[in-house]
């Protein structure tokens, strides 16, 4: 997937996270601000990288403001932002790239 335009998904509510993606040309530029960074920073990064890999994204600026989201929410918000960026809202690859 190629990031077409900046997009955002998620909220700043407790247990949620807000993910912003922008087109990039410097590989994956990852930026994380999290209330649980000391305990889960690496885990969050791992989930984000896996999700980007599943979606075959290799060039992106991705910033996350995390309020203690679980892995399933982090994945959902990253995917939400990515599909918004390319404007795809139907015929989504459930169980394929989204997994």
């Amino acid at each position, binding site marked *: 997937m190629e990031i077409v335009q900046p997009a955002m998904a998620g909220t700043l509510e*407790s*247990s949620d996270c807000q993910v912003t993606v922008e087109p990039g040309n410097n590989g994956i530029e990852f930026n994380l601000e999290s*209330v*649980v*960074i*000391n*305990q*889960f*920073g*690496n*885990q969050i*990064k791992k989930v984000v990288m896996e999700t980007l890999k599943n979606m075959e994204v290799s060039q992106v600026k991705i910033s996350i403001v995390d*309020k*203690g*989201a*679980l*892995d399933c929410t982090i994945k959902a918000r990253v995917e939400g932002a990515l599909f918004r960026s390319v404007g795809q809202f139907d015929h989504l690859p459930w169980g394929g790239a989204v997994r």
Partner: protein
Amino acid sequence: MINAVGRDIPDEILKATGKEVFQGIHYRDGYTYKKDGPVTRCVSDNTRSKLVDSIHDALIKCNIKDGMTLGFHHHFREGDYIVNMVMEEVHRLGIKDITICASSLGKAHDPIVPYIEDGTITNIQSSGVRGKIGQAISSGKLKGLAIMRSHGGRVRAIESGETRIDIAFIGAPTCDDYGNCRGIGGKSNCGVLSYALVDGDYADQVVAITDCLVPFPNFPAHISMTKVDYVVVVDAIGNPDKIATGAAKPTTDMRKLMMADYCTQFVVNTPYFKDGFSYQTGVGGASIASTISLAKIMKERNIRMRFGVGGLTKPMCDLLANDQVDCLLDTQDFDLDAVESVKDLKHFRISAGEYANPFNKGAVVNKLDFVILAALEVDINFNCNVVVGSDGEITGAQGGHPDTAAGAKCAIVIVPLLQGRIPAVCTEVTAVTTPGESIDVVVTDYGIAINPKRKDLIDAMRGVDLPFKTIEELRDIAYSMVGEPEKVKFDDKVVGIIESRDGTILDVVRKVKEYTFADN
């Protein structure tokens, strides 16, 4: 050196503080010592006035100098103006190396952080700190060691002379010109002055600060003129809206209600729940809800409480109003209903020493059947942490947690299993602030764990329909949902110590390291 809760206390800290490591909650039972006494300046000349014009003048009269220890109480909680007003004047005088010995500090005291940074304040002794002071200490800005000690532990430290207060500043809701202080009345009515009584008794010099000067005699005095050197009148000693709030509306959060229900069901199924039992609880939503549901069952079963202790709130005072308890013993009032209840003849004010000092000839906490507590974290050894956030930063206070847990026959901790993504039940707490040997039960929204050493309680609960689990099972449920948290990375630098109530060292708090990703 490894202490009795498995924490490694660095030798240099033991050397620097002259303290021993924690060796069990009753290690110092029977210990004998000579109490410290204040250096007292007599007032016999009847023409001498104690009134001084300003905090500045009081400081000058008290010969404020570098290295002194100043005492403060926290009855005004997040509405307190006293600490900031005094420290501003101290700073203006260019005084350095002050030790603050407060019964607690909160976010209201964020403005003193610059004085920590510039060396005006170099030591802090408190039940705990929140907000920016916590951040400042955790990032290594305090020159000396922060000492976190319980309410009972503070009285012990002062009475035993471990801490000598040079000047105590007592915010008094009402005071006369001769220094008779009351927690009652005025604009900043906080009900009681329990935490300040030891300052009155043991500080060399005592300055009463009030915004409501009343005619002599302001009786019955909570702190007597016989202990007060100077009286300062200021415009405001606190923000009444933040001192005693309106009673919190009982929670409607089902998670809290469910935990409260589990807690109450546990309480009523123990052998201690019988006519004449005693009880203390905190101010959290679940604690308050459990008091309300307990009151209902007491009524249904015609069981009467002998005494309630606190940290009081409306639901506890309602027990008195509804004649379900013989008396209340009060160290602090959290809402206006509790302040109002102080007038009741069966509502007794007690000092922090009577309440919780382990170096007394016995304290009220020792007579408690139940105490209902909260925690930031509990580990599989039932050790609790109420001071250091899971991110390593100091952000809470011991209060009476270790005192009541050690004293009560049944100490129950109510805690939601997850705080956001943070598991409250974990393998090892970030800091031990109450030893697991004094915690009997942990109630969570996912189940209840009884400390395995309490075989009697485990037996009492046979056949009781509650979701019992082992503490390890609770941890495993938490980890299965959120993942196992990484350990917070700390520097070697120790920024504070967690003192046990008997003055030994339970744990140390280290400077937090800035986070870096593993693969960077």
